[in-house]
């Protein structure tokens, strides 16, 4: 093969350039500690890195959501535990006042004032606030859910918090449920519909159902026939049947008020009657607490899997985009050796010509 001078120069140029480019790229990888510095370095992986990062950031948001929901749930639970304690106290009082052996008219009147105390305490519990929000008001977080008579002005809204891609959890327990016994006993799903709407179509459908439900409820209220005389209060329902679940809910405040009135009027039969209701009220609160508890357990589980997911996604992104230092350093050494060899041989290749040997 005929070798022209320009070929040698070209070849030297090409080879040195190739080695230098390689060194440049490896050096860049070492400096950024990343194998992928632009999408074309590894298109498939860089798209996957993006997906992993999105997932990680969303998961972090979910963790934030969960922490928020958890404090809300735990605060509600704490409040309900206080409620169940004072209801137990009311029950004790009612039991001791229910027979003539341990109570008389006088003592019943004294007990009545204690029950009155308990009544207002439980209203206070119903008006608990976490930060700037009333915990038991449903969606009505900015207005006191119960007035001094124990009438509910909140609604039965569930504030749902996204804890995973497709999973939402209600972080509140509306006062209507735990205090008034509306919809208690069902498995945390309060409404007639499928619960929380997930998209616009479901929202519209949900609104329609909500409207029907309200009408139905109103009708039941209107058709309710009072069954007992003087010891009952407010002339309205004491034991309501939930129109859907068929469960009987207890109005805690009415029960307490009824007990108080029964005590004041020295109506033993009514005390006995209210004692039953009180029992049911306690189990209603316990039921609500167990529901809150099961939600906390479920979000704790989700939390664990989220945190594991965050670590997994970080690891995956790192595996995809970060350099393996051992490999990189050995690559750099290899390239360095190649570059040196190229430069050294180039100097030998270019230098001599016949002219150097002619005198």
């Amino acid at each position, binding site marked *: 093969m*005929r*070798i*022209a*001078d*320009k*070929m040698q120069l*070209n*070849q030297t140029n090409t080879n040195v350039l190739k080695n230098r480019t390689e060194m440049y790229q490896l050096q860049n990888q070492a400096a*950024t500690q*990343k194998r992928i*510095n*632009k*999408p*074309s*370095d*590894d*298109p*498939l992986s*860089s*798209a*996957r*890195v*993006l*997906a992993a*990062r*999105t997932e990680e*950031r*969303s998961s972090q*948001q*979910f963790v*934030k*959501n969960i922490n*928020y*929901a958890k404090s809300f749930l735990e605060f509600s639970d704490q409040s309900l535990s206080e409620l169940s304690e004072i209801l137990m106290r009311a029950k004790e009082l009612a039991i001791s006042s229910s027979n003539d052996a341990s109570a008389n008219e006088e003592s019943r009147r004294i007990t009545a004032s204690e029950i009155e105390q308990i009544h207002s305490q439980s209203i206070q519990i119903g008006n608990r606030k976490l930060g*700037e*929000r009333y915990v038991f*008001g*449903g*969606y*009505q*977080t*900015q207005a006191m859910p119960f007035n001094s008579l124990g009438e509910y002005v909140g*609604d039965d809204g569930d*504030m*749902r*918090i*996204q804890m995973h*891609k497709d999973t*939402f959890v209600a972080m509140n327990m509306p006062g209507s449920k735990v205090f008034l016994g509306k919809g208690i006993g069902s498995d945390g799903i309060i409404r007639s519909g499928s619960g929380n*709407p*997930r*998209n*616009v179509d479901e*929202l519209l459908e*949900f*609104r329609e159902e*909500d409207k029907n439900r309200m009408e139905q409820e109103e009708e039941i209220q209107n058709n309710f026939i009072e069954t007992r005389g003087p010891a009952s209060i407010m002339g309205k329902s004491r034991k309501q049947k939930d129109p859907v679940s068929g469960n009987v809910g207890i109005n805690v405040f009415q029960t307490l008020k009824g007990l108080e009135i029964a005590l004041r009027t020295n109506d033993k039969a009514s005390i006995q009657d209210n004692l039953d209701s009180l029992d049911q009220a306690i189990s209603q609160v316990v039921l609500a607490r167990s529901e809150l508890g099961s939600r906390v357990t479920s979000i704790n589980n989700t939390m664990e899997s989220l945190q594991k997911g965050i670590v997994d996604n970080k690891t995956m992104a790192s595996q995809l985009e970060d350099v393996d230092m051992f490999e990189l350093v050995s690559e750099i050494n290899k390239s360095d050796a190649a570059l040196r060899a190229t430069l050294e041989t180039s100097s030998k290749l270019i230098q001599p*010509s*016949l*002219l150097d040997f002619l005198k």
Partner: protein
Amino acid sequence: MSKLSAIMDIGKRSMANSQTALQTVSHNIANKTTDGYSRQRVELVSNNPITVGHVQLGMGAKAAQVTRINNPWLEKQIQREGMNMGYLDARADSLGRVEQVYNEQLNKGLNQYVNDFFNGFRELSNNPESLASRTIVKESAVAMVNDFKRVVDQLESVQEDINNQIKTTADEVNQLAKEISDLNQRILHVENQGIKANDERDRREVVLKQLAEKIEITYAEGGDGQISVTAGSTAILVSGADAATLKARHTNERNRVEIYYQSGEEKSYVNITNQLKGGRLGGILEVRDQVVEDLLEKIDGLAFNVASEVNKAHIEGFDRNGKQGVLFFDMPMGQKGAASLIGLNKTIFQDVSRIAVGSKPNAPGDNTVANIISALQYKKTMDGGSATFDDYYNTQVGQIGTIAQRAIKSQESQKNVVNQLTNIRESISGVSLDEETTKMLEYQKLYEASARMIRTADEMLETVLNIKR
């Protein structure tokens, strides 16, 4: 019977020959580094012999012609591969810039801004009453809208840059075409006298290669040694001594620079943009008109769908004051240009309490609509319900990455091809100092020997002249 004067004559001519040859050697050495130079060789042939009696006597040598060592087919191949090289170079360079628009390895990009936007709604859903979380939603929406604009701006600036490149390239093409037509003329001039126009031909090949790198051309050499060059499929750039010009003009219909061909006498312009598939122009045109256009369309589609899905949910909600929600984003009716035209609704921008979070009025804790909006991130709304917003965008990043990667790979392999061909060409036509030095020695010796021959003849003549004394 030979004559002394003939010996002297042969010697003299031989001296002249070796001078000619040495001059060529010197020409070769001088052009050792000249681009596209083909080494030249003096072809010495023996003179016509004369017959004297029964013998034929040689009459020395003459320089028949100076030829260049060159393989025209190889040159043509190099020119063709050079055209591909230009195409791939331009493509890889421009794609490198396009790719940077989507590069989220080191800085925040659209993927993250969209994610932040939906996370903003998740945060708001935790605490719909709070103005602070409403402000977060507003800020993240503004940031997302701005990043949509950033992507469009950067893509358009790549197109703008390509427009400028087209203008300068068209000027360069015109100059090169002019030079080829000039060289055509000179070659015709020289070769009409039966002499090979070596240097002009070398130069013309170099210029042709440069031209092919820039624009897709085909060329053919006529019988008279002149070449005609056609750009694209119809635009005759050079024909004999005439060169046509290309004009790069901004067209309003498509709002970009296109290339027009102006044929000689008629003052009419023909748009040849679509004919140009090769060379640098072909490469940048493809990036500008196909790759970037496609990306712009996709980003418009993403912006349009995000905005309209959010709007659809938002108007169903109720804001902090119990009023029915307004459109969250201002947006165009159609998809075209959506990414640069969407914006946060002014009402919301000025008053974050107008963000509608609840599904019913006067329920401050109601976060149903915020949940519906944040759930949009995982809803398959793109590509006819087969991809989420994230999938759609990430796929684009993957695609542009793949295109850029392929462009770089083919650029590299094409570089090798061109290198290889150039080496083969140099192996045939390139100057080797060793070789030229040997030739130099050879002709120097020839010169010396020829001089000695003349001296010998002179001495012989002297001898003859001295006979009489």
